[in-house]
């Protein structure tokens, strides 16, 4: 299992890294939010890493994690049906971040060294604000706008943080787990 990237980041910023894993071969580093910009710059500029492509920025709302209904059981017999046996991995997944509702997930790729790294930044509900990566990657602009649009996570230093897929008058953040999937909102537009 290749853990060279995790090692490079955690050697350089021992105080910033809160957890690491390589579940299914994806190298992942969980960080404290205040170090994000610094580490992103290191990833981009360090000659041994050169992660020049910011592939994706997204978020996950972990507030409903593990709360989905248990598998159905045969009521008449009382025999519960267990879920399928899990197919294990060498390095188990550590689970969702503790004490944080959201996790903002960054995927980086290096075109020189052909390696990938994922950064996971826990964001508590009380302080949904992160540093923007727009000074380093122009592509972060729209990706962060989408995270703001869908999850309501602010990015400080972003030049133009407004909704992107939804319209301005839309209320709420549709990909949060407490937003009902069948909720309807009036369409805003000129009256014909």
């Amino acid at each position, binding site marked *: 299992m290749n853990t060279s990237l995790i090692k490079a980041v955690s050697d350089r910023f021992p105080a910033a890294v809160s957890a690491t894993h390589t*579940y*299914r071969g*994806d190298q*992942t580093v969980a960080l404290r939010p205040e170090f994000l910009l610094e580490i992103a710059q290191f990833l981009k500029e360090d000659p041994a890493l050169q992660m*020049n*492509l*910011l*592939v*994706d920025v*997204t978020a*996950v*709302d972990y507030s*409903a*994690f*593990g709360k*989905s*209904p248990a*598998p*159905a059981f045969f009521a008449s017999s009382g025999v519960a*049906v267990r*879920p*399928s*046996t*899990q*197919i*294990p*991995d060498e390095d188990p*997944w550590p*689970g969702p971040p503790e004490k944080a509702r959201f996790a903002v*997930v960054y*995927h980086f790729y290096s*075109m020189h060294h*052909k390696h*990938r790294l*994922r950064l996971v930044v826990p964001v508590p509900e009380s302080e949904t604000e992160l540093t923007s990566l727009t000074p380093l*990657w*122009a*592509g972060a*602009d*729209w*990706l962060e706008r989408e995270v703001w649009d*869908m999850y309501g996570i602010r990015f400080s230093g972003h030049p133009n943080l407004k*909704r*992107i*897929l*939804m*319209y301005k008058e839309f209320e709420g953040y*549709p*990909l949060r787990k407490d*937003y009902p*999937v069948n909720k309807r909102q009036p369409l805003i537009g000129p009256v014909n």
Partner: protein
Amino acid sequence: METEQTAEMPTDSEKREMMLNIGPAHPAMHGIIRLVVDLDGEQIQNADVEIGFLHRGFEKMSEEVGYNGVIPYTDRLNYVSPLINNMGYCMAVEKLLGISVPERCHYIRVILSEISRIGDHLTCVGATAMELGAFTVFLYMIKARESLWDLVEMVTGARMTVSYCRVGGVKADLPQDFAGPCAEAFQEVRKVLAESDGLLTRNRIFVDRMNGTGQISAEDAISYGITGPFLRATGAEYDVRKDCPYAVYDQLPFEVPVGTRGDNMDRYLVRMEEMEQSMRIVEAALRDIPPGEVLVNPETGQPIPAAQMVDLAKMGKIESISGGCALVAPTLEGAGRGQHRSIAVDEKRVFLPPKEDAYGNIEGLMQQFKLVMLGHGLRPPEGEVYFPVEGANGELGFYVVSDGSDNAYRVRVRPPCFAIMSALPKLLTGEMIADIVPTFGSVNMIGGELDR
């Protein structure tokens, strides 16, 4: 009277900027993009792109249905090359499960992905040419695409919304003698490409409109996260199929064409060459594909009608049907017991059994029920994975988080044309208003994956 009119008109020394609103109801904007450009004369000073007109909540819906239920939604992401989306999603979930499909299944997926890629590029180049006045090329290319879609229809039963891949395999095996019609279709495509090349590549009008417009440097393109033919036209060599090979791409011969200037003309040339390379991949894959199983078990001979098979199984007369083949609806053709071994992973917790087993024995019936009953279904272990494939527009990635239940906890698509669209203001600023059309055409914006 005359003096009053001239007083309202701007004088020669006065300059005024004009704001022009293009789209969403503009044919060149494909009905779903709004561009607000500030013009100084004909020159674009600033551009603002508004997207989201086709937002359908793909990511939210994916959290509400089972893992296999997401596949029809992925068809509608990039409706020109849905098979690549199918494949990307299925491979992401397979990675989450920690399983790998049989080699023949990999080959089938690769063959169909490349056929879709050719179709996608034909649409892009054809539409760009049409928007610049070369209507003939558009018609030729759409006709060639039709012959490719006939191939897709032969295999999947549908032209566009194919829903062909399954988590752990594909719906059905290739039809017998698929190589024959494939060669015929490619002959047609090659003829059209040669004709279009003659009509466009040295056509004065086309070259003048494409050369030097919509230019972007490799550094800027990487900074915007642009991938695919758009990035390769700038000279940066990044192709997921070569650099992070998946399925069987590392065993197939192909080259990655790159441009030098990163303008519309280079993108056109890169796409034209990629189509040729895709055909090369398909031809090599059809040659190297491991053989599948025979269609009918020779011992039992004739296929048995499904209802008769169910009756025999209920009475326990399984000797006569145990090796047999069921006569099922034509939509299930190619997914019989024999073919199952080469198209699906051997993992009972993931893939539905062949119909012969579901009808003919209790184990098969239980396997079927365990996978389709509400609250049971396919349950990957807890975890998160990201899996990229090379879509027709660039890196198409799926990030899937599972909480161990039968619905995905989070499905995120990394749409390739999202990054390109975010660079559109940069591409357009400083250009003439007429350059919007070829530049926007070469972006190959697909509303389904852009707005999800």
